[in-house]
């Protein structure tokens, strides 16, 4: 009697190889990641805490949904606030696994406190736009219109990324404006505009888009506009390095990038 080794279907061969890889991969040590995250059953589990700048609210919420579909056993919690607030929380010991900031300065604060695992990666860019109520009742066309008397302009404190970016833009345009209030984060500016309590503010263009036409934007010319660079990094000591890196990989990978683009972010 002669036995013949069955010939495997090519796809089955690929699948088995991947399985073997995944089973043995943790033993080979982890490496920082880029690449694709095709939907293969994985061993990631547990909770993952992400601190993200307020302007990432829409995009990261969608990314979380997609990520959790891929890794159903990972329970992701996202904490949105001003990057400056978040960085101070991390420095004070908040149990965060991933930090996504709206500027590099706040990330440097965390890095200086030796709390980063690895180096940060830039994953998105954003630009600034003037936000006004729908219909632009105050008739703002340029940055210098912001100093019109009687206009209520709000911004954030200088420590908050949008606060610093706005000052830079205004300085470049040679315009001085006295704000009526310094909101805790960029969404606070949006809220005041939508509530009708403030007339104008400077926010990210993604924020204007996110209001779904409830507010409208006035473009800031590219030569005076600033480009906001968004870094992301894992935080040391959390014990969730694999999940953290998986998250970062997703954000910087094709799926994450296309979600970010759909919200108006540009490539890093």
């Amino acid at each position, binding site marked *: 009697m002669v036995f013949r080794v069955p010939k495997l279907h090519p796809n089955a061969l690929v699948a088995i190889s991947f399985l073997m890889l995944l089973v043995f991969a943790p033993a080979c040590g982890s490496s920082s990641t880029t690449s694709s995250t095709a939907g293969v059953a994985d061993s990631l589990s547990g909770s993952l805490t992400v601190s993200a700048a307020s302007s990432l609210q829409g995009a990261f919420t969608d990314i979380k949904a997609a990520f959790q579909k891929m890794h159903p056993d990972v329970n992701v919690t996202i904490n949105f606030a001003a990057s*400056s607030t978040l960085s*101070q929380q991390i420095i004070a010991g908040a149990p965060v696994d991933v930090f996504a900031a709206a500027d590099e300065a706040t990330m440097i604060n965390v890095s200086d406190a030796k709390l980063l695992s690895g180096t940060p990666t830039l994953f998105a860019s954003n630009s600034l736009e003037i936000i006004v109520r729908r219909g632009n009742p105050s008739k703002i066309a340029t940055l210098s219109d912001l100093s019109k008397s009687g206009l209520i302009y*709000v911004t954030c404190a200088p420590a*908050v990324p949008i606060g610093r970016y706005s000052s830079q833009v205004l300085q470049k345009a040679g315009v001085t404006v006295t704000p009526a*209030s310094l*909101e*805790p984060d960029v969404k606070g500016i949006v809220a005041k505009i939508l*509530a*009708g*309590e403030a007339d104008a503010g400077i926010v990210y263009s993604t924020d204007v888009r996110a209001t779904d036409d409830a507010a409208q934007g006035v473009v800031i010319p590219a030569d005076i506009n600033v480009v906001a660079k968004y870094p992301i990094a894992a935080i040391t000591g959390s014990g969730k390095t694999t999940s953290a890196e998986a998250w970062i990989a997703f954000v910087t990978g094709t799926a994450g990038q296309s979600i970010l683009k759909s919200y108006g972010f540009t490539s890093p």
Partner: protein
Amino acid sequence: MTRLRTGRNRSAGLQRPPAAILAIAAIAIAFFALPFIGLLWRVPWGDAWSLLTTPSSLTALRLSIETSLWATALSIVFGVPLAWVLARYGFPGRRIVRALCLLSLVLPPVVGGVALFAAYGRRGLLGDSLFDWFGMRLPFSTAGVVLAQTFIAMPFLVLTVEAALRGLDRRSEDAARTLGASRWYAFRRVTLPAIRPALIAGAVLAWARALGEFGATITFAGNFPGRTQTMPLSVYLALESNPGQALVLSVVMIAISFGVLLSLRDQWLGGSTTGRSSQ
């Protein structure tokens, strides 16, 4: 057999609470003391004076004191008549009115701020009328700070004074009426002096609460140095940029509040604020 010490300590020894209660109370005391001790330990004492006397700190301190004193004055002027009506005048729906006036005691202050917007903001009930008639915009203004603080702090005064009025013996006021005093005269010369301890305690409580007010202030009045950035807001912001300054400002606020509480002694513990002025 229990051993009692000699002399004066004997009766103190007999009065001492059981050991278990003492132990639990000691833990509770530690629970309250530790945060303040920790604060004092973390404060950068070397830089403390320079951090305290920066223009932003001094401005915030001055603004806090001014606005809280105004808020206290308003609380007294409006709170005492309100307390009287609630204590003495039975009208249909009084319970509902009382609950309404005391609501901001239990509300999260931020909610209070949101509600203030709904009343006095540009798109609120009265916002445009206020602007048309008085040229006044309350949000983002110092007046708005005073309004927010009054909204949050007045119920403390109302509660204290109302309790004292309820506890007063009405016959004193009856006696005054039979002697020829009108209701107002009797109120001024008999009732008010009789509730003076409670009034003072209520005013001090309201002032302390106004001084520490954060949520309604930052939501309604906003945050701008010199105009609406009070001490608590200043501490909040300093946390992100200059933690040392936040610590120093916190210690100052605690010192003020601590001093206030010490000066009140036991008078504000409800029920012991009626009538007898000690001589």
